[in-house]
């Protein structure tokens, strides 16, 4: 049910202006120019890269169910919300994601915490030897350093960490299901965590719904943790937020722009298509509002595009282009991206 609601919200935000697979690529976090620019156009930051493991099969299944229940209808190559669907999203609580800045890294945070808790739990049971559930060596390295630097054997460390976890998930931003998922995905001495399937059965929900609720819980947690109130948890959030939300390729392009090269020159230097570099520009503009766009479009042209978009309530490039035939699609895309930042 939860996944349905997320999908309805996303479909609603796309306003029938994108293909029926656009929500899929958004949730998977596809790093293409189109998806990234849409994040800005349609203000979809919270849903970007929510669940990278989503399969096309799972997605199509959910879409068919939504169609069958008449929450959505298909219209040419796109999908739209029906009245019934609209009603549905009005009655639901607002999901609290922030996919744009965490992008799956929330799981690294939880892996660290999982290993810390498992270690401390065994330590308290006087069992210094155990097989970590967490197999990732970079997580091991991180936690080893963390435990040593924080002198985990000193009296009070465990109590204080536990208090911080209590305080964190006790906060009113969480619902009980969040709190339970958070704690029952942890393991300790003689206390193994529960599998997704076991949790899903307990709540009578689908595995996908439970996983999405868990991700929501992590996003709330990461948003809530602060250095004063949760100092020991705060350290575990190191490098979890994506600082430069640019793809690696766009980052390279960005560096060349900073050196003063033009789109054509960069395309040639990097042996890439001009289109690709244009996608990078869109990506850079949506990430950095100080990026100078005057080499590509004048202030006057920009305002014209935004005015048309507003007047006709559309972000369809073709519709806008009909009114400003002197501008390229690329210029219109820049204008629309800028208009949202």
């Amino acid at each position: 049910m939860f996944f349905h609601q997320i999908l309805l919200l996303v479909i609603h935000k796309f306003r029938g202006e994108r293909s029926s697979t656009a929500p899929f690529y958004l949730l998977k976090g596809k790093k293409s120019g189109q998806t990234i620019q849409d994040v800005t156009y349609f203000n979809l930051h919270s849903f970007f890269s929510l669940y990278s493991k989503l399969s096309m099969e799972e997605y199509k299944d959910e879409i068919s169910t939504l169609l069958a229940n008449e929450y959505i209808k298909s219209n040419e190559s796109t999908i739209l919300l029906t009245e019934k669907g609209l009603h549905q999203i009005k009655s639901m609580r607002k999901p609290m994601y922030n996919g744009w800045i965490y992008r799956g890294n929330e799981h690294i945070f939880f892996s660290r915490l999982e290993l810390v808790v498992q270690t401390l739990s065994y330590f308290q049971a006087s069992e210094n030897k155990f097989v970590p559930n967490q197999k990732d060596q970079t997580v091991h390295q991180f936690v080893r350093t963390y435990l040593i630097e924080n002198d985990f054997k000193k009296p009070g460390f465990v109590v204080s960490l536990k208090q911080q976890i209590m305080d964190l998930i006790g906060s009113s931003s969480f619902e009980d299901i969040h709190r339970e998922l958070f704690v029952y995905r942890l393991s300790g001495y003689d206390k193994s965590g529960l599998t997704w399937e076991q949790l899903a059965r307990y709540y009578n929900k689908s595995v996908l719904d439970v996983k999405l609720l868990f991700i929501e819980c992590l996003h709330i947690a990461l948003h809530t943790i602060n250095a004063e109130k949760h100092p020991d948890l705060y350290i575990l959030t190191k490098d979890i937020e994506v600082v430069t939300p640019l793809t690696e390729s766009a980052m390279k392009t960005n560096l060349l722009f900073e050196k003063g090269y033009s789109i054509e020159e960069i395309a040639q230097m990097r042996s890439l298509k001009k289109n690709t570099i244009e996608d990078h520009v869109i990506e850079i503009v949506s990430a950095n509002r100080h990026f100078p766009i005057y080499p590509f479009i004048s202030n006057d042209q920009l305002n014209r595009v935004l005015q048309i978009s507003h007047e006709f309530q559309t972000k369809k490039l073709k519709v806008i282009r009909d009114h400003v035939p002197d501008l390229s699609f690329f210029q219109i895309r820049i204008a629309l991206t800028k208009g949202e930042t």
Partner: protein
Amino acid sequence: MDRLTEVLQQKFGYSAFRDGQKEIIEQVIAGKDVIAILPTGMGKSLLFQLPAYLVEGTVVIVSPLLSLMQDQVEQLKIMGEKRVVAINSFLSFEEKEFVLRNLSTFKFIFTSPEMLQNERFNRMLSTIQIAYIVADEAHCISQWGFDFRPDYLRISSWLKSFKETNVLALTATATKKVVSDIKSTLHMKEPYEFIHSIDRPSIAYEVKELENQQEKVQWIIGRITTTNGPGILYTQSRKKSEFYAEELRNRGIRVAFYHAKMEQDDRILIQQQFQQGKLDWVCATNAFGMGIHKDNIRQIIHDHIPTSIASYVQEVGRAARDGNQSLASLVYTSSDVEQAYYVAMQDFPEDADIQLFYRSESTEIQLPETTTRILSYWKEVLSEQETIDLFRNIKQKKWLEIQSLFSLFQNDLCIREQLLNNFDEYLEKRPSNCCNVCSFDIRDVLEQRNQTEVEKQQLNWVYRLNELLH
């Protein structure tokens, strides 16, 4: 106390050696080639771990099964051994670089057969002192074995650069044919051979032919709901394992399913829950079992005919590690033998697949990954026709093996004796609870299930957090 026993006690915390261990270790230390065949759970790891502390240099362990390698690395780390590393495709580029530059600082280097082709790895290996080489799961070398790994054959040419180094080959099960394959592939001249009997006197065997699938389901549910666990129910498919788990759960059994399609995290959790006694039964495909450290498994049930005698023996052998009476049951219908053959054939290519594989340039053909690996190997070594003949031959042998397993279950001879004979062994002493052909009283073998009503667990986060951390 002699030096070996001293190390055994100090490093490993055991008071005495088990049958055969000491002799094998002495031979390894003396620099002899050794082949040791020991059932899983009989202290196989100790054979290559202990000598390492009494000789100079690094031990290199070649292991074809990644999950097993991971488990062994973890076991060594638990013992406090930090100088251990696994070099395989899971390492990132940076990690691999770091390890290769510091190769000599490790006492135990685990590696996969694929790595043996890596030139840089071999160059670095040649600069360090190697104590001895271990070929783990050595039966995978033999194409007649039930899990042949073609990459593993590459160890043969690789070993030629280590002529002076002695080799320890370890495996749980092997017929004479497989042992001779191991010897020739590993260039062993006069190895010390230790063959532990595969017989497990504390496991009784029970085999039943039933009319149809429904009868099987009824029999299995009846057995599990009335007798004691812990136990493993082996099924042939992912779907079946989920089906049985659901049926049993509805009847108040603490049960979970386990198969390879589950996420790794969740597989680990099920293993732990089973080991901690939070689950009484696991309904699983053959993916379950490796790396399970649980001594008190009382029952193993198969709802199908396994695809080889060796895999059957291995799965059954997970019971009774503590030496207490246990039972291995198998129920089948007459059509199951074809099903077993069908499953066994899934990984083998058809003639047409082989032709296509030889005649097309890249690997555009859609074949299972293991098949592609096996074929790529033979493509280098054999002609198209030879490969076709080889696989026809292997399939023929497979069919015969499944047939013989089937007739072993069907005829009126002692199951235990027949299993032993298959591995060229003879029964020396028949346990009082042998098999249902020799007859035994089920009440001597199984206990009644203590009807502990499972109440639905209520999740409570504060309570749980207090359990995890005090």
